[in-house]
């Protein structure tokens, strides 16, 4: 691939990343992951993110099933969400994490309506983030293996 193309790809990836940060989709934790990436694990970030999305799909499915039950089992939902929150925060998925916090608050209040609404929001944020990161990693892969993190820090 021509170096110009590579540069272009990288630049695009960088742009996506930047906007993700600016819009609050990602936070500093993501940078931590990037820092961990090195020669021994050149695709570490992608690996972790993939792992996260694989797991999160399950979480969402579980929560989906749980919110359909009536009456809502707030305790269970809260437990699910707690785990999901921990997971999202570990990759720096800020928006998702914040929605999870909100969801848990509603759970603690016993506010079913609030929970449902928030859950929709969580799904949305989650889907958006996933898509963007997929694109991001794809660009990087195309650009070349040796520089996965576009000068993250």
């Amino acid at each position: 691939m021509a170096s110009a193309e590579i540069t272009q790809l990288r630049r695009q990836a960088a742009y996506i990343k930047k906007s993700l940060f600016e819009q609050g989709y990602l936070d500093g934790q993501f940078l931590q992951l990037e820092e961990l990436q090195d020669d021994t694990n050149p695709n570490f970030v992608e690996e972790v993110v993939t792992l996260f999305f694989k797991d999160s799909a399950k979480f969402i499915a579980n929560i989906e099933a749980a919110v359909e039950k009536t009456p809502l089992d707030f305790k269970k939902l809260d437990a699910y969400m707690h785990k999901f929150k921990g997971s999202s925060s570990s990759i720096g998925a800020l928006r998702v994490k914040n929605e999870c916090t909100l969801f848990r608050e509603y759970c603690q209040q016993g506010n079913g309506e609030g929970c449902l609404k928030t859950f929709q929001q969580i799904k949305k944020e989650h889907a958006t983030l996933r898509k963007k990161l997929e694109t991001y990693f794809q660009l990087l892969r195309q650009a070349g293996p040796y520089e996965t993190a576009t000068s993250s820090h």
Partner: protein
Amino acid sequence: MDNGGGAAVSTGSSAGSRRVGDGVSDQFPAGLRVLVVDDDPTCLRILEKMLRTCLYEVTTCSRAVDALFMLRERKGGFDLVLSDVYMPDMDGFKLLEYIGLEMDLPVIMMSADDGKDVVMKGVTHGACDYLIKPVRMEAIKNIWQHVVRKRRNEMKELEHSGSVEDSDRHRKPSDDADYASSANEGNWRHPKRRKDVKDEDDEGEEREDSSTLKKPRVVWSVELHQQFVAAVKQLGIDKAVPKKILELMSVPGLTRENVASHLQKYRLYLRRLSGVSQHQGGISPPFLGASEAAFGSNNSLDGLDLQALAASGQLSPHNLVALQAGLGRTAVNASMGMPLVDQMSFFNSEMQTANSSKIRYGPGQQLSNKQANVLHGLPTTMEQKPMAHLHLPIQSFGNIGLQANEKSSGFLGLPTSQVRAGSSSHPETIHGHPGSSLLMQTQQRPQVPISQNHSQMHVGMSQQPRLNGQLVNEIAGGHASGLPSSVGQQILSNETVGRVLVRNGSVLNGRGSSSYAAVSQASCIDFPISNGMELPGNGFPLLSTAGLSSFTSTGVFQESVPATGNLEGLDTTTNLKRSRSLVPSYDLFNEFHQSKSQDWELQNMGHAYEGTQHMGSLQGNPDFSPSVLGRQGFVSTQKNEQNNNMGIGCKEMVSLRGDDDRRNLGTMAQSHNNILVDNSFKIKAENVIVTEHFAQDDIMDALFKQQGGVGAIDTEFNFNGYSMDNIPD
């Protein structure tokens, strides 16, 4: 669990060739061997990477049970544990307790939850740190400090005690004041610093350099523990200061520091028991007594005992519950006969490593189900403290049985029947004595001649052993032959109710044949545990009973009879086919979330055990709350045949029981000692029995765990004033 990228590991491992105690590694903290437990794969992966980047040697697990298994398998193979709080198979705090009891490793908790309550829980359960997720690299980089700190403290303890009798004396007044004023266990640490500054400084220098200095640990054998408990009783828990205890015990080579830390644990244990017992509604008290005996380091029988008891089916649900509660720790799954076994097996496995005759329970193997079932009844909180040497798994278990007897008549019944049940299949099981009879005996007088059965597990728990032996015997269906009374002895000093059992489990394993007899007894234990006795992962004593029969001498009572009642672990050679289901112990653990953390860390396992292969030193978790006691019954009934060692193993009979237990333990201890003497091989059965007992414990634990709220079973010792600031770090 996986080790993550193999390649990546190597970088760390090369630097980490040093093992604990090997000496200073100039590359420290590189090479620090860390075990990470987290059910979230994303977090786990990230942590693994972070740790590797710090050049630590990382091992990952996504389940707590796996972690425990590994820890037990590789005793001394890890320096530090990082664990998540919320895990599906076991509460992180419970895991924390187990680790504290059995291995005494520094544990760092992690969670996205940063609520004050949760963090406080970490503190009270003995975590040395609490990290909020998402964990950052900076936090990971410094975790090595906890390893160093712990080692330093231990070294100081040892050195201090060993070298400064004078300073001790000088400090005595202040120490006494410290101790007398409140159960401020931690004081002993501080005074050390203050007073023996000079000595410590010198020593400190040495220690500081080598974070990997080996810390000689006192192995609190059942006998030793019983002596300790007797001394404490004599002095009165409130007035029991290390110095005086030491004097009363007059054990050569034992330092004030050893006693102090043991006392600390014991108090924690008792507190826990009292907390647990409340739930149970009174069952706990009996166990306290046992716990005393079991307090020995190897009180790990806790869980085992309960399990064993449970397994033996002797424990009535009520008792089981109590035990569990008391044990708190051992998650005795009532339904799981196995759990106990697993616990035992876990323990055993641990012990095994220590002993030649390890009964390896196939992973996940559980003592034969039937046996496991036997244990079912007993919530053996086999929480065994790291009884590395518990050769005699029997320890606490025995006590448990004993203790249980008194209080919970049901218990008595249980063990015996259980024993039989388990033993039925194995004639060798300790059947020598009708389980019940044994149990009864044990209860009533700890003195029960456990020796009858076999010189089994004498497990240091002088007091307890009896019980265990008894139980074991009983469990064995009365095969007295096998069950050395030592089994009774093993009665895991339920002190660590939950813990001990667990430990015992390991011990048992180690012991190979070590008579799980103790375990069986444990089953009998009327575990006051109500708290959900958790059978310390000991493979469980309960199982032992069940499997005792198969415990052929190989003494490998190791793995304290998998909770499932199969002494499988115990006797490798024998037919312990019962695979100690190590797994079960997990169940127990789960159950005992509630078990209050009795962190009874018996770190100081009596030396006695060191030698004996079996008894890995009952992890006397002295702090077993009454409930724990049940478990502790570290039944170290080591098969006499092989063991004379066994006797030693059981020292730790942790009597989880409450006051009564203690008493029982006391007597048991005595009898235990007697038993030790006679190592006739009778134990084959014992071992088997022990497992059964343990299994029961587990079961009981499981049953009770729910109940757990660790009521304050403060039987004899009023630890109300106990300040928890000494939670071992």
